[in-house]
Each structure stands twice: as structure tokens, then as C-alpha cells.
């Protein structure tokens, strides 16, 4: 047990992100953080991700901003072009809507438009997700929008270890990375390796092996899939749960390998079903592994409604472990 303790610790998702920022800011003086309430509020950040950073690095490098999402993003891009490595935080992914111009028209395109002769090493961090009664404008999952834009990378960690490892990799990446966390995951705990820990972008993780149905999930739906898997194991149905971790670039090979094994695919995400990342994954799987499919792929996604406030409605609007289990049973019937 003690040997394990020296090499991994149990941290929350939030603590893991904090560690990533701290270590990278120590390692590279060009890295700085800016966003609303990242420095002062409650010791650092509405979700504690930037806790204690201003004390160590000062208010220049851990910079509170006014409520100016477009400028937060645009300044981050400009700073990145001028030699800095900014990590810009948006309090809610929903607010990134105000920053779409600098993210989509500038950050994503500058390298390509300038013939490869510029770099925009910026990380745009935000948290997504529903389940806490924050209602329609504070509960969205908008990763599909960013996945759609060439030039951006999109990351969605679901565990503390991945949160740290991927944030370190994102900061070190010379491209604009949209780094999407989930509000319900901040307090989840998990083992995080000590010392230098990176997770490469573009590599999926198999969270659980199984022979019968491949389930691809994002953020909380990974956890719900695992919950469904536990239940179904007692019924003799084995789920194989794949967590892509990065959506762009997508580790399609991992998903295909799983589908070739099981022949059945469920893709589940909180984001609205219509034109969500599930559609893209399924289109790619069908194109590349049609002959491996024993049943049509299934999507279990957020309903095409603004996220409602009442608990019962919100629960009904999101895919739950029960739904994953039911869909898997149906596929196996």
C-alpha cells in the first residue's frame, strides 16, 4: 500500500486541474491565467480550480477580468500571438457564446490563414453540464460547436487524473485548445499520479472492457455508463465503456476496435442530441466499420429542449444510467 501511496494520490477533479496550472506556471513563465473571479473569489475561482494561484504567482499572472467574455478571448489570442501562453477561463461554457468571434474567426484560423507562420498557443477553459438546477443558460454542453471548427482542439476529461494530464498537455500544445470541464465532476475524486503526469491529446481510454455493447460517453455519461455496466453485468450483459477524452482530434481507431469486437454501439452525451458529437462519431463508425455492426448505432443524448429547471424535468432531459442499461438490453434482445 505504501508503494502505491508514493506514486498516486487521491485528488478531486478540481484539485487536479489546480495542480496542472500550478506546475505549468512554475515551469514556464509565459503561462498565465485570466478570467472572471479566478484570483480573489473564495480563494481562487468559482469552482476552486485557481485556488491559491494568485498567492504564488501574483495578480499579473493570475488576472481577474471584468465581465467581458469577447475581450477575454480576444486578448488571450493576441497575447498568444505575442509570445505568451494564456489560459483563459470562462465561468460557464454558455458564456463562450459571447466569445465566439475571437475563438472561431481568430484563434482557430490564424495559423492557417497566415500560411502556417503563426502560432496561437492558447487554452480556453470552461465548464459544461447540467444536473444541478442551473437551468437553460448555465447548463449547456457546447462541445459540438467547437468540434465543428477546423483549427481548434477540443478536450473533455472525465476523471481527475485525465483532467490534470490533459490540461498539462493542452497548455504545452501550440494550438488553441478548448478545454471543457463538467460542473458535476469538480468534486469527484480519483487517483492522480504524482510528479510529471501528462495525458496526450487524441488518445481515448477504455474505462471498462466488455464483449457485448460499446458505449462511448463524455464527462458524466462515462460515469453513468459505468454504473449501467455494473448493473448489466449481473444480467450477463457486458458493456465496453470508451471515454474518448479528446474530441478533436478523435481517437476513432479505439472506438472502431471496440465496435469490431462487440458489433453494437451506443453513444451518449448530455449535449443536445441534434447535431451533437454523437452524430459525428456514429457517421465515422458507420463509414469505417459498417460490416462490423450487428445493429444500428444508438444515441442517448440530451433532449432537444433547453435544459429545464425542475428536477424531474431536468432528469428527463438528460440521459441516465437507466437509459443506457435499457438501450443495451434492447440491443441484446
Amino acid at each position: 500500500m505504501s508503494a502505491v501511496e508514493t506514486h498516486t494520490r487521491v485528488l478531486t477533479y478540481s484539485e487536479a486541474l489546480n495542480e496542472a496550472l500550478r506546475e505549468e506556471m512554475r515551469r514556464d513563465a509565459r503561462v498565465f491565467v485570466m478570467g472572471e473571479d479566478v484570483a480573489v473569489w473564495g480563494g481562487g475561482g468559482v469552482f476552486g480550480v485557481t485556488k491559491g494561484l494568485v498567492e504564488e504567482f501574483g495578480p499579473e499572472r493570475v488576472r481577474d477580468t471584468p465581465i467581458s467574455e469577447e475581450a477575454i478571448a480576444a486578448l488571450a489570442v493576441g497575447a498568444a500571438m505575442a509570445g505568451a501562453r494564456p489560459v483563459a477561463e470562462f465561468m460557464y461554457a454558455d458564456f463562450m457564446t459571447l466569445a465566439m468571434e475571437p475563438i472561431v474567426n481568430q484563434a482557430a484560423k490564424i495559423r492557417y490563414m497566415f500560411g502556417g507562420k503563426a502560432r496561437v498557443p492558447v487554452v480556453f477553459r470552461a465548464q459544461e453540464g447540467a444536473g444541478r438546477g442551473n437551468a437553460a443558460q448555465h447548463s449547456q454542453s457546447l462541445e459540438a460547436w467547437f468540434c465543428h471548427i477546423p483549427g481548434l482542439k477540443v478536450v473533455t476529461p472525465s476523471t481527475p487524473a485525465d483532467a490534470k494530464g490533459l490540461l498539462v498537455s493542452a497548455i504545452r500544445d501550440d494550438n488553441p485548445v478548448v478545454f471543457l470541464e463538467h460542473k458535476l465532476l469538480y468534486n469527484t475524486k480519483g487517483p492522480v499520479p504524482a510528479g510529471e503526469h501528462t495525458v496526450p491529446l487524441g488518445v481515448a481510454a477504455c474505462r471498462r472492457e466488455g464483449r457485448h455493447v460499446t458505449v462511448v460517453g463524455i464527462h458524466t455519461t462515462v460515469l453513468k455508463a459505468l454504473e449501467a455496466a455494473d448493473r448489466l453485468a449481473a444480467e450477463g450483459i457486458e458493456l465496453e465503456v470508451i471515454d474518448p477524452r479528446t474530441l478533436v482530434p478523435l481517437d476513432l481507431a479505439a472506438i472502431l476496435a471496440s465496435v469490431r469486437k462487440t458489433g453494437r454501439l451506443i453513444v451518449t452525451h448530455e449535449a443536445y442530441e441534434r447535431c451533437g458529437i454523437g452524430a459525428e462519431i456514429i457517421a465515422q463508425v458507420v463509414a469505417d466499420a459498417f460490416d462490423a455492426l450487428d445493429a444500428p448505432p444508438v444515441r442517448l443524448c440530451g433532449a432537444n429542449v433547453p435544459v429545464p429547471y425542475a428536477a424531474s424535468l431536468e432528469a428527463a432531459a438528460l440521459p441516465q444510467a437507466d437509459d443506457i442499461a435499457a438501450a443495451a438490453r434492447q440491443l441484446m434482445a
Partner: protein
Amino acid sequence: MTEVVLPKLGLTQEEGTIVRWIKAEGSRVAKGEVLFEVLTDKATIEVEAPASGVLLRILVPEGATAPVATPIAVIGEPGERSERIARASAGVQAGRAPAAAPWPRIDPVSTASGDGRIRVSPRAKALAAARGVDLRRLRGSGPDGRIIERDVQRALEAAPAASAASSAGPASETGRPAVALQLRAIIARRMTESLQTTAQLTLTSEADMADAARLRDEAGAELERRGGVRPTYTDLVVRAAAIALRDHPRLNARWTDGRVRLLPDIHIGVAVSLEEGLVVPVVRHADRATLAEISAQVRDLSERARGFRLRPEELDGGTFTVTNLGMFGVDAFTPILNPPEAAILGVGRVRARPVAVGDRVEVRPVMALSLTFDHRVVDGAPAAQFLQRVTHVLEHPYLLLLP
């Protein structure tokens, strides 16, 4: 919403094979409109829609077999949910409650195949192709009767050699492979059953067909002039048998529950040879029909038999069968009884042969008649008398023209 179930179309029928869906999924059907064709233990039968509406879902595709009284399709109005029914009938394993639809889907009207295509998942199709399994022989256990991987796997486990052998065959030429295989199975079963359960033996005699031939020509010409058809030798024999059966009711009987049952009506089945196998449509009340009527009926039944368009009642209820192999050069043979009938008359070819007429030898057209009868029902002497009567009528063919 109405479930369409596979009807029981014969007393002994236990299952049927869907030959053809006349209407496609998604199309409107009217109550009473022909909806599908099913192959029973006798032959193919058209079945009408039990209700009006849209054919929402076909649960048993063409080529697949289902037990009698199981749901094979759903008729309703668009938007009605049929998944529950589909899942319930498409082989959900016992003990597993059908899952409620997990997601409030906005259900598009399903497109696809009431058009004769086999529903099969790509994975199953690939496996079947790789291992030489004929998909047409499989019944799908997936949703909507789709053939899925485990169906192919089960087929491989059950009969790996057989599946390899079945991939080619005469059935493919006709385009009705499922039907052919099913019919063969039926014939095999019935013929074996006949030989095993009855005490059958065959008597033969010969009829001098000179006068019958002349009648056939002359009456035939007249009938054709009137827009009818020229009678065949089979038609003459059917008429002759019907006349003879009036006087010999023991041959128009069957063995039921340990005793002989004489049948009141005379319905004569005429064996029709199809590529897929033998079918025997029935000329009802052949004793009351004229030669012209018999001739027209036999012609019509034969044509429809070849097109698999016979109705159930046309295959059922026969009391006696006539079977002609003369056109293939057969003189005499030993026809097998068509259960539960007590007798069957086989007809050979008309051949010019030297025959003693008085003291002279003449060349006469002679036709062999082979009567197989069930000795449990009738003895040899009465059977022989019947055969004698048939021969007599054919040799005095004006008797065929009497009512």
C-alpha cells in the same frame, strides 16, 4: 392498431412460410385487400388484410416461417408505436421483460423492405458470406425479424456441413427458393406418412383409347370453336373417375378413427407438377361437372398452381386424386395415396400397341391405368370393379358426355 396474425388455413396446419408480401411497409391497405401469400402444408395461399390502415410494420419477412396465430405484421395509423409489439414477437428471450423505449424519440415513418429483401445486419451478412451460410434459410431473431450475428452463429453450430451444401440448388433458378424448400419438406413428410400408415397396393389395367381419342378431337374442336379448351386425356380420366365413383362409393372414402367413412361428395384432385414440387388442386363436384367444365377448371387450376395463386379451399377437401405421368413416357406406375384419401388413379401414356382384337392383331392406342387403393378401406375386388368401370367409360366415351 391491429395485429395481423398468421391464419390457420388447414386443419393440420401448424406453421406457414411467408412467400410474398403484396403490400409494402408504409403503404395503405384496405380491409379485404390481398396482403400476403403464405405457403402452408398444401400450397401457397393469398391472405387478405383483416383491417384497413397503414401497414406499419412487417414482422416476418418473405422466406421466413412463423407458427400459426403469431403476429406477423401490424396495421395501424402512422405515428402509432409498434415497437412494443415488434419486440414482443421478434424473439425476446423468455424471462426478459421487454424494455420500455428509453428515449422519447420522434419516430420517423420507417422505410424499407416489404420488397422481398432479407433483413440482415451487416455483421451477420459478412459472417454468413465468409462461412457459406445461406441467409434465406435463416429466421431472424433480431428486431423486426432481422437476421443478426447470433442467428448465423447458431446455424453454423447446428449444421455446418449442411449450410455449405445448401448455398446452391435448383431453387435459385425459379427465384422462389424458400417456397421450394418448404414444399419439398411437405411432400416428403406426406408421402412417407402415406406409405407408413396405409395398406396400399396398386392394380393396373389398360383402356383402348381409340374412341376416346376421336371424341377428344371432335369434341375438342367444337369446344375450341366455342371459345373453350380442348380436353386432355387427364380431363377424360377425371370425368370417367367421377362417373365411376358414383357407383363405387367405397373408393370415395377415407379411414378415420378406426373406421371407414364414405364421403357424400366427389371432389377429384388433379396432380400438377411444378418445378418446386407436386401440388394437387381439387375439382369440386366433378361428378356434376360436364367434361367441358372439368376441362376448363383443370386448366385454370393448373395455371394458378404454377403461379402459386391457389386459394385454400382449392387445395383442401379432395376425395380422390388423378395423376398423369403419361406425358413423360411412363406406361404404368404405382402412385402413392394422397392422404387421407382411399384411392388414387395413375394415368400412363397412350401408346400404339399391337393388340388382339378377336383373332386378329391390330395396332390400337392403349393407355395404362394404375389404381392404388387403401386396403383398410376397400378390398381388392371392389377396387378392381371400380377400375373396370373407369376403363369401360373411357372405352365408351359417349358416357363421358352424359350428365
